[in-house]
Structure formats: structure tokens, C-alpha cells
């Protein structure tokens, strides 16, 4: 791949990604939420540009991460996996896929990811968190012992009784968001004026079990129906029930748990405040581009999907997206449809790094930011392939979702098809996506299915063009 710098003499800004796992946009103050969950994120929004219609194209974390860092959408094949299959990831690399951190590294950026990474995710990062199993010695017996202990611990942390799980999480669990913040602050404080960094700060208290170590009860719920009583007798997957029992107290209501989710947002927001203070103290705030977003949203109680992000409904696919920096307009709201894949080309444009648009499925948002355009795309393509296998498209006013069989449409957690095999929603009249029009509005149904097929065809065709170009360029190297 060819990337050239346009103005090498220009000072490049640092880049920080602040990512909150499973954070839905609508639970933030700047997106209109009634609870004061996010004063620091609101500050970024007030002093930066906020996108009110930003979406993920996949609601599973590591699949969303590839889209964020590669600017591409890798189409899912036939398996139901939380991670990419070998075949899927090969289609990315065999077409010359490169990650943002690799491009920035070539521009002399130091690259940090304050998250646990495995496999392809590590590519291009100078620093990231390693799992215990990645740190072990080469001794086979020791490795086996450590891996077995780690697996038992993981099982207890995710599926054990809540009291034991809470203890283990605190003592042996993954790094806390406080540790992530401490490390981020250290990286910022130790940065030298002539060095540039790309720093991914990853917070996950907003992911189930929504268990911030402080602020646990900042907000309180008002409901009176206990969650476990509400789901009693319903065909939810046994594993998921254990997962919930591990995360929630017996007498908690849905509103209590939502209050806990909001408290987790508020706590992580306070940590963002600490990072912003450090940037200010170090006089780096003016020369840093900050991108705040989440990997996907979260369904709290919508569509009978409790505290999970499966289903391609807006609650799970809409993400907050805020950009902050010297070159970013202040207090600006952009309503156009945008998606994770748009981040890389936008950043490259902001840094003046040239690229071929064929590299990315995403479109640069620079024209929107500079008021030179009002739209970059007509629709968002989205798919999921773990608990459900669905594909869909979302325009500003319509949503179309489909599975190719009842088996694919049947949710492994909830044991039902949610909206059925095919779903069609008029988002203007029905923003909660509750009235499926698939059987009543046939004209729109045909139109939307044609659009979906065309979107899939375009993605495949573009990737094939890339693959051929990559082959030609590889061949040229050896001539």
C-alpha cells in the first residue's frame, strides 16, 4: 500500500482514541439524556464536533475494532463466531489490509493500545496489554498449568456466583479502568515534545456487569419489578442466565441495573476528566486530536434483549462519536449517517496523509466537518454473526434486516427470532423499531432488499479490486 505524507514539515498532532465499551449514545448528556452521566464527554462535544447518526457495522467488539482501525468492513462468512474466522481475516490481509497504527508508525508515531490484544489486533502497536498466557515461559508444563488456572479463573469471573466473581474480578481480573487511566496519564506525562503518539484508551466498566469500583450507586432506579422475576420461565439460554446471576443481585430491578450502567458511564467519564486535565497541564490539549466513541451500543431492556448488544437495532448499533482538536470546529453537530469505517480516512485527511480511496470502505468526513458537503453516504450496511446471523441496512428513515433461514434468525441467547426472519422499520414514525412492516409495505420491502444486495455486492467487488491490485503490486516487487 502506498501512503505519502503531503506536508512533512507540518507539526502532526497526537491522536487519542477514547473508547467506552458497549456505550449507547442516548445515555450521554450531550446526546440528550436526562441523567448527568457525562460532564467531561459533554465538554468534548461542546468544544468539538459531535456526530448524531454514527453507527457500527458490526455489534461484536473485535469485529468493530477491525472496522475502526482498518477503515474496512470484512464480510462475515458462514460461521457464528465472536471473533473473525481464519477465512474472514485472510480476505482482509490478502487484499493488502493495513491498520491505522501501522500507517501512523511509519509517520514516526509511538503507538499504544491500553487494551488486551491477541493475534492480528497487536499488529502495529508498540505497547498493549498482554494476557497472562502470553507472558508465560516456554516451559510446556508451566504454560499448561498457568493456562488451566487462567481458564478456571475466567470461568468463575464470568459465570461464578456474584459474590465470588466480584472478589475475583477485583483481585485477579483484567486491568481496571483506573489502571488504564493511570497508564494513559503516564504515557502523556512522559511524552517528549519532539515525539508524537497514537494512544487508544479503552474503558470497559460500561460492559456488563456494569461494575465501576466507585460511583456504583451514583444513580438509583425507581422500578419495582425484579429482573430475575421478570425473566423467570422465559426460554433464555442457561449460560446467559448464569452470566446474569454472576452480574446482578437477586433483588435488583431493571431500573436498578440501568442506574448501575449509568453510574459506570459517570465513573468512566470522571476518568476521562483526569486524562483531559493531564493534557491541559502538559499543554498538549491544543496539539492533540481526540476521538471519543464506542465499539457498539447496548440493549438494556428493548426488544426483550436484556443487557446485551446483539440484534441490529439502533440501541445496539448507534454509537457516540465526538471529535475534538484544534482543526475541528467547536460546538458543531453533524446529522449525516457516518460509521466506524470512516474514521481512518478522516484521520489521514486531517494529518495530510495521502491515500487511495480504494483502500477503505469508509469515507472521509473532512468535507462534512468543513461544511463542504452535507452527506457522505446514503446508508449504513451492518451485520452480525454470533448469537444471530443477520445483515441489514439503515438509511436515515428506514431499517431493513434479514436472515437467510429461521435457524440463523433464532437468537442463541433469547431463543426467539425477535422481529422475525425479515424486518422493516419506518424509523421516522417508529424510532423504537417495534412495528415490523415487512408484510405490509411490499414496495419498500423490495426496494430495501435490492439496496442490501447491492451493498453486499459493492463490498465484495471493492475487496476483489483490492485483492487484484495487491497481487499486482506484490508481483511487481519481485520482478
Amino acid at each position, binding site marked *: 500500500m*502506498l501512503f505519502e505524507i503531503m506536508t512533512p514539515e507540518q507539526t502532526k498532532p497526537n491522536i487519542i482514541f477514547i473508547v467506552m465499551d458497549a456505550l449507547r449514545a442516548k445515555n450521554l448528556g450531550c446526546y440528550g439524556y436526562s441523567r448527568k452521566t457525562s460532564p467531561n464527554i459533554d465538554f468534548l462535544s461542546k468544544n468539538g464536533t459531535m456526530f448524531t447518526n454514527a453507527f457500527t457495522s458490526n455489534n461484536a467488539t473485535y469485529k468493530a475494532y477491525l472496522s475502526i482501525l482498518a477503515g474496512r468492513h470484512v464480510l462475515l462468512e458462514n460461521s457464528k463466531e465472536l471473533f473473525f474466522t481464519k477465512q474472514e481475516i485472510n480476505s482482509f490481509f490478502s487484499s493488502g489490509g493495513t491498520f491505522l497504527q501501522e500507517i501512523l508508525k511509519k509517520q514516526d508515531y509511538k503507538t499504544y493500545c491500553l487494551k488486551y490484544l491477541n493475534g492480528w489486533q497487536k499488529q502495529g502497536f508498540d505497547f498493549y496489554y498482554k494476557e497472562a498466557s502470553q507472558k508465560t515461559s516456554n516451559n510446556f508444563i508451566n504454560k499448561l498449568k498457568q493456562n488451566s488456572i487462567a481458564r478456571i479463573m475466567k470461568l468463575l469471573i464470568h459465570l461464578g456466583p456474584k459474590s465470588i466473581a466480584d472478589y475475583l474480578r477485583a483481585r485477579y481480573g483484567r486491568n481496571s479502568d483506573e489502571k488504564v487511566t493511570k497508564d494513559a496519564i503516564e504515557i502523556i506525562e512522559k511524552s517528549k515534545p519532539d515525539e508524537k503518539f497514537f494512544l487508544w484508551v479503552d474503558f470497559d466498566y460500561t460492559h456488563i456487569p456494569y461494575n465501576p469500583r466507585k460511583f456504583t450507586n451514583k444513580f438509583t432506579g425507581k422500578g419495582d419489578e425484579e429482573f430475575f422475576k421478570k425473566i423467570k420461565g422465559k426460554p433464555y439460554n442457561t449460560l446467559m442466565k448464569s452470566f446474569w446471576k454472576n452480574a446482578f443481585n437477586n433483588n435488583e430491578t431493571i431500573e436498578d441495573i440501568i442506574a448501575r450502567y449509568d453510574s459506570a458511564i459517570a465513573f468512566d467519564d470522571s476518568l476521562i476528566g483526569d486524562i483531559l486535565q493531564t493534557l491541559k497541564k502538559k499543554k498538549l490539549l491544543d496539539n492533540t486530536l481526540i476521538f471519543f466513541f464506542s465499539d457498539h451500543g447496548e440493549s438494556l431492556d428493548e426488544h426483550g434483549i436484556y443487557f446485551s448488544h446483539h440484534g441490529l437495532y439502533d440501541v445496539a448499533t448507534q454509537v457516540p462519536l465526538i471529535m475534538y482538536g484544534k482543526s475541528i470546529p467547536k460546538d458543531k453537530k453533524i446529522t449525516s449517517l457516518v460509521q466506524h469505517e470512516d474514521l481512518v480516512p478522516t484521520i489521514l485527511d486531517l494529518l495530510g496523509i495521502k491515500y*487511495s*480511496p*480504494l483502500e477503505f470502505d469508509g469515507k472521509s468526513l473532512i468535507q462534512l466537518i468543513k461544511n463542504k458537503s452535507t452527506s457522505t453516504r446514503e446508508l449504513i450496511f451492518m451485520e452480525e454473526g454470533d448469537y444471530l446471523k443477520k445483515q441489514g441496512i439503515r438509511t436515515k428513515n428506514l431499517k431493513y434486516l434479514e436472515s437467510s433461514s429461521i435457524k440463523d434468525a433464532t437468537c442463541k441467547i433469547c431463543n426467539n427470532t425477535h422481529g422475525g*426472519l*425479515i424486518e422493516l422499520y419506518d424509523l421516522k414514525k417508529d424510532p423504537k423499531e417495534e412495528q415490523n412492516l*415487512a*408484510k405490509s409495505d*411490499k414496495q419498500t*420491502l*423490495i426496494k430495501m*432488499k*435490492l439496496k442490501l*444486495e*447491492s451493498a453486499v455486492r459493492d463490498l465484495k467487488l471493492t475487496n476483489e*479490486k483490492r485483492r487484484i*491490485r495487491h497481487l*499486482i*503490486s506484490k*508481483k*511487481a516487487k519481485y*520482478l
Partner: protein
Amino acid sequence: MVLIKLEISESNLLKLKDKTKSLGFDKIQDYLNYVIEQSISEDEEQEPSEEDEEAVKRRLKELGYL
């Protein structure tokens, strides 16, 4: 094919020569045609064909939605 005259700066011509070579194209003309095709096909919005529409209707009917 139509023959047209195109004025470009010397620096761009050098860059074009480099790209043509590094990407394995035989001639600058081939590389330029490739770039133009890419750029135009990205902007064109293709209308679905009648065949596509018929196939979609058939599938929706099979699934019980039409």
C-alpha cells in the same frame, strides 16, 4: 479509444511514472485508465437490473413476504 492531450506538471509526471512501475502497469496510459475507471465507478450509482428485481421478488415470495 480516443486520443486526448493532457497537460500535467513535471513533478506529477515523475510520480505517475513511479506509480506505474511500482504497481506493475506496462504504460502510464494503462495506469491512468485504471485510476479513472476506479474513480468513476465509485461515483456511479448503479440502478438494479430487471433480473435483480425479479430475483429479489422471487426470494421474498419464497420466504412468505410477498
